[in-house]
């Protein structure tokens, strides 16, 4: 009897050990490819960057050299168009969802529409923009690309604004109303500025997401090989340029694709991490001071 229990106990202990081993293996299995991607992009990408890459336009096929100036500027241009359209509308829609008509049919349908937009695959967004702007204008154009990106930015900004405004306690609104201030002023001049940091973070996260999107630009902004500022003409963008270069047979273009990927990852992760740092600033400060304490106590 005694022996049996000991064996059973050993078996349970073994299962426990084995399970924890599996968890560690899973963690390694996830972290390895991520580290590989980051390492590969940084080593290959940083190695293929030079000044030409940022200042020059592409050379004709087969010639070595040239850069992606047009694509980097094109991405900024397209994202700016997208943000200019989507950010004001998105914030307004978020305010509407959080502050007005909470149980009405209109706000429920809007909420549903935003959910729907969040889940739409980005390639379908591209088709939307194609039907909306490329078909009537009969040519690929930058405006269609910007609109496609705005459809991606809109739901993220709306949800972020709504969630953040819901966190503002009601007594702040009531205090404003009790002073005889009209409701719209309470919302736009007290509630919204008070949660500006959070809304700003949501906007920046949405923009960083849009900056990395390729699929909706493939057949809207399309891409070109020269500098263009015209809104009714095709426009190059970093992701599409990387795609075109990556599947090309020329070694120098492949090198530039890696350079482009490196620049893109720096832009996207840079915006993403900075805005996260802004929203979690206090938490971050606490975190580092705790870490410092821990390290100090370990030394001592």
């Amino acid at each position, binding site marked *: 009897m005694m022996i049996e229990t000991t064996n059973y106990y050993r078996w*349970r202990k073994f*299962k426990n050990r084995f*399970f*924890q081993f599996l*968890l560690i293996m*899973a963690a390694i*299995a*996830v*972290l390895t*490819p*991520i580290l*590989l*991607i980051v390492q590969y*992009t940084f080593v*290959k990408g940083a190695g293929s960057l030079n000044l030409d890459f940022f200042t020059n336009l592409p050379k004709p096929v087969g010639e070595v050299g040239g850069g992606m100036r047009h694509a980097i500027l094109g991405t900024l241009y397209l994202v700016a168009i997208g943000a200019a359209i989507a950010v004001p*509308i998105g914030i*307004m*829609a978020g305010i*509407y969802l959080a502050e*007005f008509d909470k149980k009405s049919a*209109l*706000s429920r349908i*809007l909420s549903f*529409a*935003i959910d*729907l937009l969040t*889940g*739409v*695959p980005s*390639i*379908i967004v*591209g*088709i*939307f923009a194609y*039907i*909306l702007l490329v078909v009537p204008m009969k040519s690929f154009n930058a405006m269609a690309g910007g609109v496609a990106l705005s459809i991606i930015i809109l739901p993220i900004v709306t949800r972020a604004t709504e969630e953040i405004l819901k966190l503002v306690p009601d007594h702040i609104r009531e205090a404003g109303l009790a002073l*005889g201030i*009209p*409701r*719209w002023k309470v919302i736009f001049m007290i509630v919204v500025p008070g949660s500006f940091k959070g809304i700003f973070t949501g906007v920046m996260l949405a923009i960083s*997401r849009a900056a*990395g999107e*390729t*699929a909706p630009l*493939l057949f809207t902004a399309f891409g070109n090989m020269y500098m263009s500022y015209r809104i009714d003409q095709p426009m190059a963008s970093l*992701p599409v340029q*990387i*795609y075109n270069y*990556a*599947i090309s047979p020329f070694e120098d273009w492949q090198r530039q694709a890696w350079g482009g*990927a490196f620049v*893109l*990852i720096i832009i*996207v*992760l840079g915006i*993403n*991490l900075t805005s996260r740092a802004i929203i979690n600033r206090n938490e971050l400060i606490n*975190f580092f001071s*705790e870490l410092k304490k*821990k390290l100090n106590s370990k030394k001592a």
Partner: protein
Amino acid sequence: MEQTVTQKSIKNPAPKGPDSFHLGIPFKLQDKINVWVLRTLAFAIITMLATLIVLLFKQSGEAVKEFGLWNFISTDNWNPVEDEFGGLSFLYGTTVSSLLALAIAAPVSVAIALFLNEMLPAWLGKILGLFVEMIAAIPSIVFGLWGIYYLAPFVKNTLTPMLKGSLGFLPLFQGPSFGIGMLTASLILAIMIVPTITSICREVFKTIPGHQKEAALALGATRYEMIKLAILSPSFSGIMGGVVLGFGRALGETMAVAMVIGNSTTISSSLLAPASTMASVIANEYAEADSDLHVAALCLVGIFLFVITLIINFAARSIVWHFNRKHAR
């Protein structure tokens, strides 16, 4: 007393001066205007979306008329030159690549969520958790680039001989490997959906009250038994929600898949063979499609993709929502 004061302030225009927002309009009217502006905007967004969906259906109308819905999804004959289109191979490619990715990613994601929450000290878990979440922020084009130049050679030179050596008798691993193909695409997808499932799982595990875990430990449970009894079984439906959400993400993923799947329109039982998904065929052919029928067929593929992701996403959301409601009580 109070009422009279507020009514007075509403009725009487405020004195002119520093208050430049007054504009001589009564406050009540200002609020009304504001509400109606926002309502119009909300209505405009809804109308816009509805119009887009209707236009999408209209655009694909020609293909439906030509082939018929059922015929379109039951044939795999895709020939833009002859203007003959059937979408079965893309339906197959999307389903198989996403399911395979899910089969790889789901257990791993649950495991890493447990690892981060239960095994690591809180501060280290936070750093690694942020690191995992960062994968979701990496643009999919970068995954695709890495897939072509690193993962595809790895699959061709290392993984394929390994699989053929151990499981080569299965029909799944027949034929030569070119590096690019269904298996490579599934692996990339698996890496991409891990952060989605992991972050949902971590949220779900956090809702479990500490005393529940302590109770299990106090009864003499090992850590494994505690995790099984106190964490995994009550959060099962929440985990499923995360998994289904990851599935929805895998279905719609375009660029990374388009770059490594090989873009063949034939259905092959081998995972090593090249294939196509609904998203990848749209990405590859839409810009070059010159016949109206080709565009219509691609739009029809897009509609299928749209409807399927819609259903999956709402299923996931309702699962997570039910879980949250159950645990809020």
